[in-house]
């Protein structure tokens, strides 16, 4: 691990217990300098505790934390070049926008002229010029978030932490803020670490991510890598996967599934387990190729236009009684119309079947 100390952020063997609840279990994490990194996990997985330990608001029971090659494990929050955008924003209700943003600079006895220049710059970057004298309760949710961001970034931290940055925003603001956040990070080059339980947020914002559960990191990698090949059922479901299929080995690369015999390119280590296929990887054709692996006859149960294509719900057509059969969701990009009740040919490309690990907790 010591050869990695020059990473942006490095957590080594961090553990934390509250009473008899193990919030973090011997957790390792490394974040590159200047990237947006997401820690994704359900509530109670320990992600917020990890964030608080990095911020210095909580001390780990064991483990060490390095930021740009310097150990910060025991530094108090006020002594770390790390700033946080809190989930609730935690703006000072009695201070106006200017004073909120200036707080960190004034706390470090920055000369007044410098404070005014820096606060002015960051507020104009955040398109908040003109609102300096507003109190937090006079701001909209989006404006509050921008003040919280400005208040943190004006200090030019080496690391910015964001706790569920989108959770308090209306749906229509989220996409806009996500774009702004990405642009801002690119411009400033600051390392961003954000925690969230929303896989869409993780997908849209981060270069790389770690999926956490029960105080550990279950999977770690580039956003694309983790989303295309979740390692187990927990990660797959957490990333929004619905098409998880039982499979058992027949011979070679061929597996028996409720949808017929499927060949899989990425051969699993097990004989009986689960595999995943993403809705946009399933192909819908006019007719199935008879008696070929990876093909089966499907029956369309429902379909909804989603703006770009069709969200299709289908099941295996077993001639009449299809009621108890497992269902699949498919994102069809075909402009051709598909009707409910229509019979179609369905194809699972072998390279897009993802085997899932059986054990839920493994590194």
């Amino acid at each position, binding site marked *: 691990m010591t050869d990695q100390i020059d990473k942006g952020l490095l957590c080594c063997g961090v553990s934390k217990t509250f009473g008899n609840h193990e919030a973090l279990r011997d957790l390792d994490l490394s974040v590159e300098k200047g990237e947006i990194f997401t820690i994704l996990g359900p509530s109670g997985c320990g992600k917020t505790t990890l964030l608080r330990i990095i911020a210095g608001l909580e001390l780990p029971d064991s483990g060490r934390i390095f930021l740009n090659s310097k150990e910060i494990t025991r530094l108090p929050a*006020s002594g770390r070049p*790390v700033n946080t955008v809190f989930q609730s924003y935690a*703006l000072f209700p009695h201070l106006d926008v200017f004073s909120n943003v200036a*707080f960190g600079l004034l*706390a470090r006895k920055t000369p007044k002229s410098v404070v005014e220049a820096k606060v002015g710059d960051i507020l104009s970057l955040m398109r908040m010029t003109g609102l300096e004298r507003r109190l937090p309760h006079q701001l909209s949710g989006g404006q509050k978030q921008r003040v919280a961001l400005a208040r943190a970034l004006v*200090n030019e931290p080496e690391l910015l932490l964001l706790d569920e940055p989108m959770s308090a925003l209306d749906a229509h603001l989220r996409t806009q803020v996500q774009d702004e956040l990405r642009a801002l990070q690119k411009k400033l080059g600051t390392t961003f670490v954000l925690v969230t339980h929303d896989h869409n947020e993780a997908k849209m914002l981060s270069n790389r991510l770690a999926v956490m559960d029960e105080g550990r990191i279950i999977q770690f990698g580039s956003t694309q890598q983790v989303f295309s090949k979740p390692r187990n059922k927990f990660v797959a479901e957490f990333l929004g996967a619905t098409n998880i299929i039982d499979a058992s080995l027949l011979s070679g690369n061929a597996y028996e599934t409720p949808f017929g015999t499927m060949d899989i390119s990425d051969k699993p280590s097990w004989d009986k387990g689960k595999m995943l296929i993403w809705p946009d990887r399933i192909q819908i054709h006019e007719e199935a190729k008879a008696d070929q692996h990876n093909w089966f006859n499907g029956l369309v149960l429902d379909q909804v236009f989603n703006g770009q294509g069709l969200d299709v719900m289908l099941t295996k057509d077993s001639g009449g009684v299809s009621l108890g059969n497992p269902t699949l969701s498919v994102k069809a990009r075909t402009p051709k119309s598909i009707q409910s009740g229509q019979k179609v040919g369905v194809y699972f490309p072998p390279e897009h079947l993802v085997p899932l690990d059986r054990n839920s907790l493994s590194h």
Partner: protein
Amino acid sequence: MKEKRPMVAIVAVASLALMYLPSAAVALFSVNNARYGLAWRGFTLQWYARLFGNRDIIEAAINSLVLAVVSTLVATILGTALAIGLRRAPWPAALLRVFDLLINLPVVVPDIIMAVALAMAFNVLRLLSSVFEMGLFTLIVGHVTFQISFVTLVVKSRLEALGQDTDEAAMDLYASRLFHFRHVTLPLILPGVLAGAMLAFTLSLDDFIISFFTHGPESVTLPIYIYASIKRGLSPEIHALSTLMLVLTTIPIIIAERLTRRF
């Protein structure tokens, strides 16, 4: 939709009447132009004017005000420090529950028990130092002991309502302890501190039992003066004095109520 329920309305009005009629009667007799009797003989402010000519009353009023101001100042500082200390220091949860109980207890313990305890304590302490001879000092100490609880309770609830978010934000934003207190904690709890102070001030001003047991011959307060005068019979001057005190103690309560409603 509110139902028409005459009985409920009557009981409500009757209860309010029960609460305020005695005070209203005192206020009425304080402006009645008759020394004796219950008959209305016209409006006058002469009883109020006479109050200010009575040296004993003026002295008692000064004693009461000095006592209330000083004890409130001391109790507000100590009570606020106690409330902050209880929240900030990492006390074990079990100990914190004990502390909570200890803060609430003085509010419900009968005054007479506090008063007797204080009298006994001062009787022992004055053997060690003449400072503890019954007088203004023992009155102030006595009042502070019961005021602290009230201040702490008000400030504590204010702190709890604020939550930890802003504290953590201040720490995250490089604030030293002093900067944090001066620019975040104090301004945010100030309405609570002032409300607690107003409450403590009122409690001191109209306290009788504890004052009675801890005062000396040179430190008669207004309630004690009123009590002593009543033994000689009711007089319109006492009505006037009581009415003044009523007004004086109501104002801080109204201010306190306004303050706690802010934010």
